[in-house]
């Protein structure tokens, strides 16, 4: 095997190590996962039941319920990716393993991709359970749904979210406590401006401008159209997601690399407590 081949092999095994570790953690915290899943389903039901309050004709009620459900499910999925990425460093600090992970001979690219790959896998399983559980409970019908198009757009959005998450994951590296707090703030801002439960057009103009920067805006719009009306992937939704993905990945990695150097320079790459 050539030197490049051996390096690539080791890097991919390293990436697998992050996925493997997160699988172990999910298994060990499975009761918490079940509890969190039940809570998410209950919370989504409280949102989707709003469609019943309106006294709309049956078809309109079904459409509104689907629109709300798609918003809740997509946000649950993207929120998990964002949380996993943002807390990449925070988890390691809490557990005290940060120094061992950062002194291991695996590149930061594989470290962050490994974390992102598991987040996508985990988020997809949870989102699927959430969608079908709530649909069955409320009796939502989606006869025209184009699930393939919805998944395709979601796949592109996942890459964008991993990239954006990389940028925010640096925050706990620079400031152990305030960084994690800022990550939550960033997630909250994205939730408000992306039109998760309402059209972006109802927001003030300045908020609509910010919404253009959030990948969630495009995937929510596109996936609603695919599931409610059965449309394919619209280029108008795909191109902004592709651009955010292409830009956010290298920028996210560069930002993280700068943050890591800062942490090494100032002695912040260590466990807390």
């Amino acid at each position, binding site marked *: 095997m050539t030197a490049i081949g051996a390096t690539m092999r080791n890097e991919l095994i390293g990436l697998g190590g992050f996925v493997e*570790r997160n699988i172990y*953690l999910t298994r060990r915290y499975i009761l918490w996962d079940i509890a969190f899943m039940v809570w998410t389903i209950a919370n989504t039901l409280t949102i989707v039941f709003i469609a019943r309050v309106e006294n709309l004709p049956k078809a309109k009620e079904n459409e509104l319920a689907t629109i709300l459900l798609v918003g809740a499910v997509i946000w649950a999925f993207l929120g998990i990716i964002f949380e996993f990425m943002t807390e990449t460093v925070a988890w390691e600090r809490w*557990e*005290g393993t940060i*120094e061992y992970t950062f*002194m291991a*001979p695996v590149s930061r690219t594989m470290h962050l991709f490994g974390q992102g790959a598991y987040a996508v896998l985990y988020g997809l399983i949870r989102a699927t359970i959430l969608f079908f559980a709530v649909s069955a409970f409320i009796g939502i019908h989606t006869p025209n749904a184009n699930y393939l198009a919805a998944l395709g757009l979601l796949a592109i959005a996942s890459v964008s979210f991993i990239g954006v998450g990389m940028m925010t994951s640096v925050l706990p590296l620079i400031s152990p406590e305030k960084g994690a707090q800022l990550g939550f703030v960033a997630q909250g801002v994205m939730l408000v401006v992306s039109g998760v439960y309402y059209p972006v057009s109802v927001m003030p103009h300045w908020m609509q401008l910010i919404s253009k920067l959030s990948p969630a805006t495009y995937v929510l719009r596109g996936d609603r159209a695919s599931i409610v009306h059965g449309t394919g992937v619209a280029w108008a939704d795909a191109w902004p997601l592709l651009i955010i993905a292409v830009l956010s990945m290298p920028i996210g990695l560069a930002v993280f690399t700068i943050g890591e150097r800062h942490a090494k320079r100032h*002695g912040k790459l*260590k466990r807390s407590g």
Partner: protein
Amino acid sequence: MSTFAAPRLSTSVRRDVPAVEVDNLTKVFRRRDPKAGRFARRAFPALKEVTFTIERGECVAILGQNGSGKSTLVRLLSTLLLEDGGSARIFGHDAFKEARRIRRLVNRVSVEASFFKKMSAQENLSYAARFYGMTPSQTRTAIPEILQRVGFPPDRRTESMMNLSRGMQQKVALARALLTSPVLLLLDEPTTGLDPRSKLEVQDFVREVRATHDATILLCTHDMAEAEALADRVGLLDRGELLFLEPVADVKRRFGVETLEEAFFAATGRTFEEENHDDELREVFG
């Protein structure tokens, strides 16, 4: 009694150079100093122009109080810190410019066992080994073997780390470090806080590693008896300065004393337990 196989030496390990070459290594931290004012910051030199060499296969102990700079030295050599002056080379590679190469050669055991506490020993070792390129088929046999060698009970391999004693956790930490066959092993107070029996077991294991592995060991400790028992040479790091690094017999001869405690007093004018405000502030980096 079985022994480990010799470590798989990486092709990047040069045999014609010392294992560790540290030259005028300096590290300064800035931190808030409440005594000087609310927003005042003060520079604390954690290491001051430290210079030493460790030959391949040698075991060197660095002694020092809390906050003396031992952990800072280990973190610099582990590529977890960047230097503020001087240089450090590990098997000829620059520790700060060739971090990826260094990481393949080095592993470490620190005072805290540092594991995902809900996960088992088997799981913690398994994922950590992947970062060093070990495949599942390799770790399937290597992990039980290495855990057995450190005296870890096989029936507790799948138990959460949080249910294990400190001594047990430290054995798993040793196993994690050796699983990746490092040619430089950095031991940062590996026996601090252990009960006497666990302490002796860990020390015996370090001796065995020396006898059976092609590993160079840097042991940082404040346990003088441990340093004397395990190391070829003993150094004293005091408030960031390396005061000496010699065989124990030479140290005692130089200061005309019977014990390392007396040598510390002769070299610094203080007792080993004596610390001041600066030492407390410095300790946060340890």
